[in-house]
């Protein structure tokens, strides 16, 4: 029975917390990671308040033609590059640093046999990923 406390779950604020986690801050302060912590996407599941990303469904549905990736510069290039191997679901789960996206790109090319596109397309795709699936912004 989950009818009590069934308040709106539009807790979009979860993602905003990421911005406060000063990466490589000169003086790291672990308490900043705890400041202003939201209730979580589901008030009746306390684990949702501890997650690095909002629950599925709170961030809009994205473009169904592109496997649910949000529209924006590079969305199409990203879609066609990535789904040669895997579906968009693994992309949409990520909230990682810019550096981690660069590392993942290298790993996919060197270890997973990803065909690397031209430099310009690579830049467009990485910018798209860092813009939309980031822990930094």
């Amino acid at each position, binding site marked *: 029975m989950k009818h009590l406390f069934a308040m709106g779950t539009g807790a979009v604020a979860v993602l905003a917390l990421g911005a406060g986690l000063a990466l490589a801050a000169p003086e790291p302060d672990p308490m900043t990671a705890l400041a202003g912590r939201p209730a979580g996407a589901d008030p009746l599941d306390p684990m949702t308040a501890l*997650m690095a990303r909002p629950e599925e469904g709170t961030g809009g549905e994205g473009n169904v033609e592109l496997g649910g990736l949000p529209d924006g510069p590079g969305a199409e290039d990203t879609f066609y590059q990535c789904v040669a191997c895997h*579906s968009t679901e693994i992309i949409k789960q990520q909230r*990682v640093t810019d550096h981690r996206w660069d590392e*993942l790109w290298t790993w996919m090319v060197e270890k997973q046999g990803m065909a690397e596109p031209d430099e310009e397309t690579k830049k467009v795709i990485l910018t798209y990923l860092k813009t939309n699936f980031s822990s*930094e912004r």
Partner: protein
Amino acid sequence: MLVDPNPTDPQSRGDQYSSSRRAFMKTTGLTALGALLGMAVPFERNLPAGIIPVALAQDTGMDLMSGKKGLVVLGDRPLNAEVPAHLLDDDITPYEHLFVRMNGLVPQTALDQNAENWTLTIDGEVENPLELTIDDLKSRFENVTSRLVIECGGNGRAFFQPGTSGNQWTVGAVGCPEWTGVRLSDVLKEAGLKKTAVYTGHYSNDVHLSGDEEKEVISRGAPIAKVMEGDTIIAWAMNGEPLSALHGFPLRVIVPGYPASASQKYLNRIWIRDKEHDGAKMTGDSYRLPAYPVAPGTEVPESDMVVLTNMPIKSIVTFPETGTEVKAREQVEVRGHAWCGKGNVATMHVSVDFGQTWQEATLEPAANRFAWQRWRANVTLPQHGYYEVWARATDGDGISQPPLSPVWNPRGYANNIQHRIALVATA
């Protein structure tokens, strides 16, 4: 999307389309094929009659999800799905409630449940290399049946901040089925380990996501000392049934206590190495932790990353389901399981006041080493309102679960944060 010429016979779909997959891939650009799939594969098996996704969908194993109940699908290609905590209440995890972690595509032999001519090769640093059929395994070595926890190394990744790359597992990439097979140590004794043997390297016939049949999907292993302890098995059955397509038919390794990626599915070779195995996903950042604690968000040089071995002490609350309404001032049973990569769970505690006070739970003995252990506690909530039950297991070395994520690592492994559920007490 393709129009199914035979929409009334779902059984025939898989056979027909999967068998044509290779030919299809030869005539279609990989990118175009993937693009088609990315748009076509739905999350539920509730496709409109007459319409099915293209051939590859079958090989992801997505169709087999109809045999699972209540799982949350994190991704469809590769297929990854976890289990809500309240569906993990059984002492022996049934098939329908076991998580799915695929690194590649399900091999055709597993889809067809065809083990004809299957052999397991044991080679490398051994005196007598072996090539064993499944019947050889069953007849030449003592058969053992035991309940062994398997847990994805990334279980709990979702709770690291900043986020770490990979599937965002919460608490449900774990289970404790009953496996039947033979001890890997018995097989290695027959092969005769050379003094130079230090590590195992596991191989299988699953298919890389890129469709490149030459490419290893994953090939991990474990130190010889670990597998010679006797708990590691080569299994052919789970819960008394032959291994299923999603869980490794016809053979798999179970290395209890280690991240489940060491427990290779679709096993056809164990290469005994004279050094730490360096197969796919043994190196780089995969299943590795920094050799020293790092600040959240730090990138760590590859040379400073070390292989994750024992999974940490952990527990979950499997009953009641989070958010359940209960009566204030009346005893309520709360229960779950506890396990530890070292196999030495010592005590179990719960708190209903956000960790300010803890009460000890009863901890039942393990059915066998590396089985998870049932714990139970009766809690009484003093008045109406909102409560959280926090669960904390402690191992034999006095190490317990932290209330927040433990030390951050670049790929988000080994998160044993305390599990919490909500209870709503009514007057």
